[in-house]
């Protein structure tokens, strides 16, 4: 690695953003490292895995196409590779920083904490992105939304290159005006109403701002994150009252897919439910949520 002594942070940031956008990122920002360190719990802070980190770069790639929101949920479950586009973009960006500026960088591991198990990430990509100003927490279980790009997938890069931090969004696009109207009529926003396991609830103040967001992640996981079903099903099978019931438990058509995912380690095929996002006007109808429209704007 050829270290470069004089790197202008502002220039470097422009080049980093340009690179990431060229690789498919819709939005790129630099999070306030001090804020992350204060908010993230011990063991989940950037310095826990890269002690000399100076900057956290967050980027987001586009979510689903308009068509994806209209196909059956089980089909959407197979669009899980979308998130890997964000990871590959960040992976490339880490190399770019090192080769361009000669400064150590890492692609932030996105998955779970080895010790804490599923649903506890080693690093919160959501926190990075929010503080980098490329998304704000929604009533839909804190999924980040962007007023221009809607629903995105996020990835992060840690680098020892010190870059000027961006500020979080000045306004939260959630709830959208139509959601506020619905809430005032029935006490629920679309994401709350159409959640199959009713894992969302919350309140909105008279000015249309979020007051409280309640998210029952356990209920959500029961539907969409099947890795937790594996030990439960095995336990059910072991405790089955007879051979036939045991066989039924293990060979149920739904469970066959589960065994497949488990056996091939196919995290990309974990099925998301997405009903909250399918009902979300920001995710589906933000000005540039539609890739075709984005293409037209950029040309």
């Amino acid at each position: 690695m050829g270290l470069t002594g004089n790197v202008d942070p502002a220039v470097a940031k422009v080049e980093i953003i340009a690179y990431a956008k060229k690789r498919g990122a819709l939005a790129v920002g630099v999070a306030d490292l001090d804020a992350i360190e204060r908010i993230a719990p011990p063991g989940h802070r950037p310095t826990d895995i890269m002690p000399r980190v100076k900057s956290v770069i967050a980027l987001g790639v586009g979510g689903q196409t308009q068509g994806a929101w209209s196909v059956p949920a089980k089909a959407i479950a197979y669009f899980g590779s979308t998130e890997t586009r964000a990871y590959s973009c960040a992976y490339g960006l880490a190399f770019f920083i090192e080769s361009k500026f000669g400064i150590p960088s890492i692609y932030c591991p996105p998955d779970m904490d080895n010790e804490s198990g599923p649903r506890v990430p080693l690093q919160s990509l959501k926190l990075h992105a929010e503080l980098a100003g490329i998304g704000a927490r929604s009533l839909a279980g804190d999924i980040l939304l962007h007023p221009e790009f809607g629903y995105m997938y996020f990835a992060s890069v840690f680098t020892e290159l010190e870059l000027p931090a961006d500020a979080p969004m000045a306004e939260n696009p959630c709830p959208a005006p139509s959601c506020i109207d619905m809430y005032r009529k029935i006490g629920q926003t679309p994401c709350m109403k159409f959640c199959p396991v009713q894992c969302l609830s919350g309140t909105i103040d008279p000015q249309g701002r979020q007051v409280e967001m309640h998210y029952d992640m356990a209920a959500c996981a029961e539907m969409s994150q099947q890795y937790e079903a594996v030990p439960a099903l095995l336990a059910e099978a072991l405790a089955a009252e007879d051979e036939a019931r045991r066989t039924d438990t293990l060979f149920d058509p739904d469970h066959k897919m589960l065994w497949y995912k488990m056996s091939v380690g196919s995290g990309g095929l974990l099925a998301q439910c997405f009903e909250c996002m399918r009902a979300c006007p920001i995710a589906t109808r933000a000005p540039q949520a539609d890739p075709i429209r984005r293409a037209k704007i950029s040309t």
Partner: protein
Amino acid sequence: MTRGLTRAQLGVTDAMIASYGETIFKLSNNHQIRRGDPIRLRDFTAIEAHRHELGMSDAQIAERLGLNPTQVTFIRNMEERRRFRTGHYHMLNRLGGGKRFRAERMTPYQDHFRYSEDALAMRAGLAFDPARVRAYVEGGYWRNDTLRGWLVRQAKTNPAGKAVVDASGAVTYGHVARSVEALAGGLYQAGVRPGDVVAVQLLNTLEYVESFLAISWLGAVMTTLYTTFREAELATQLRHSKARALIAASSFGPFSPPAWAQQQKESLPSLKSVIAVGAPVKGALAYKDLVNSDVALPADVPEPTAADPFLLLYTSGTTSSPKGVPLNSHQMLTNARLGTIEHNIRVGDIVLSAAPFGHLYALYSVKMALCAGAAVALLPQFSPADLTKCIEGQRPTHLFAGPAHLAACEGAGLLARTDLSSLRLVVLSGAAVPPDLVRTVEPRLHGGSLCQLWGMTELQAGLYTRLSDAAEIVATTAGRPSPGTEVRIADEKGASVPTGEEGELQVRGPSVFVGYYANPEATAQAFTTDGWFRSGDVARMDGAGNVTLSGRIKDIINRGGVKYNAQEIELLIERMPGVAQCAIAPVSDPRLGERACCYLVPRPGAQITLKAIGSFLLAQGIAKYKLPEQLELRSELPMTATRKVIKGHLKPQSPTV
């Protein structure tokens, strides 16, 4: 980390899991509450104040509860496992594109429809030879034919086409489809579920057609009750079939099946719903309310498939007590679909059955009409006058009748006076067809054709003559096997007999049943060791493959070791002047083992004696040992719904010879 460590190594006990599990579950990110928007606003005070509500790491929880992080992780895993409900994933598969989740459209996994034990028992009885299944599927015989699928197809492609016609007018396929779907919803509301047996006792009416199709639409199983059945027969069949519901006419004369059934709740524990067609019956549901139901079937009710049983029919019982025959759509609808082609039934045709819908033969005609997009003409109840009136009024293109129906019309002198010009095909089945009847009827058809068909409840249409067959073939044989059906004429050891020789007609094929319902003994007797169904009919086959039926095996008279076929003698006696009908059955004899008794219905005013019968038969060249040795004069003989003599009910009243 906890992986691989035991509770003893971790220092965790069941008491600790019980004590701390709930708190750890809630402090973790399983339940998240965010107040305001503190992270975006970098309101660190608010974040700290509510950190526990946003979800804490195991290390943070451990610090809070006075445990170590590995203990927290282990306890959290145990608590999550205790709470985790499997089976939600199937909901994901049912969330359609662009449709928003509606709780009322989803059935929780554990509440998903399940077949009753009785239904599963019947399904278990449909165990086919895997090699035969493969052959039927690969041969194109078995497709996913269902009555529901056929009705939907006709309602979509031919909504204005006539589906049912009677003297009052016509009902279109579109209308029938709507009525059937509503009735299926009504039956569901009445407690009928897929796989349940629904008994039907109705005349040949629109309500019968709707009931048949609605039961099938729902995935339930119809068992038919002859309209002549009364308390004893009804109780026997309702009990044996474990019928969940009864759809019956409010009354047949003074007898009200719904009223009777209402009184039998204790003796018929499976019967939950009684539905009356016609006048209201106290305690019974009204058919008209069900057919106007707006209850939609829940989404978790499985749409019926061809492999589902959809009929449970009882054999006509000419030789023994009734036996239930469960049949699925593969078996019945393959046979009907291919029969439609062979009988040349086309869209716009009109199919009339003189036989009651309670019999499979009549249902065969209904199924073919539905398959082809033809109309079903309704003859509520047979009488010679009503049949000929229906033919002239409804102008059917196809008539499905028993030989006795036409013989009765001819006997009443009605056929010669009836305009039969609409008939392109008359199918005769249900009993042996006298060749003379064929020769009498065919010239009256003005170019139409006759067809002899042999079938049984166990297989529907097994043999029939074809439209291109010569008149003599139609008059003297039951034709050749229906498509896919294989037949052989076998001796007592199961070996095929030479062409032209008599033996038992044995059958196998895509429509042949696989076993009697809850009757393994009868099933074992019904099949040869190599899987052929023993029809019990005596038959011979000519060189072209045409089969002639010559009686029942049990009609064989064994007179001192010399055997002969009773039907051969019956047909001759029925040609005697003054004889309306006769049947010969064996009576036991201490010296010979068996001897023949002739049960005879004389025409009005005729005087028939045993001596006269003997003289007549001898004049026909019949051997003396075949002469009846006892005569029983009767005003009528016990008959099945298809006008077949029930020989098991014939008992001599006089010991005289």
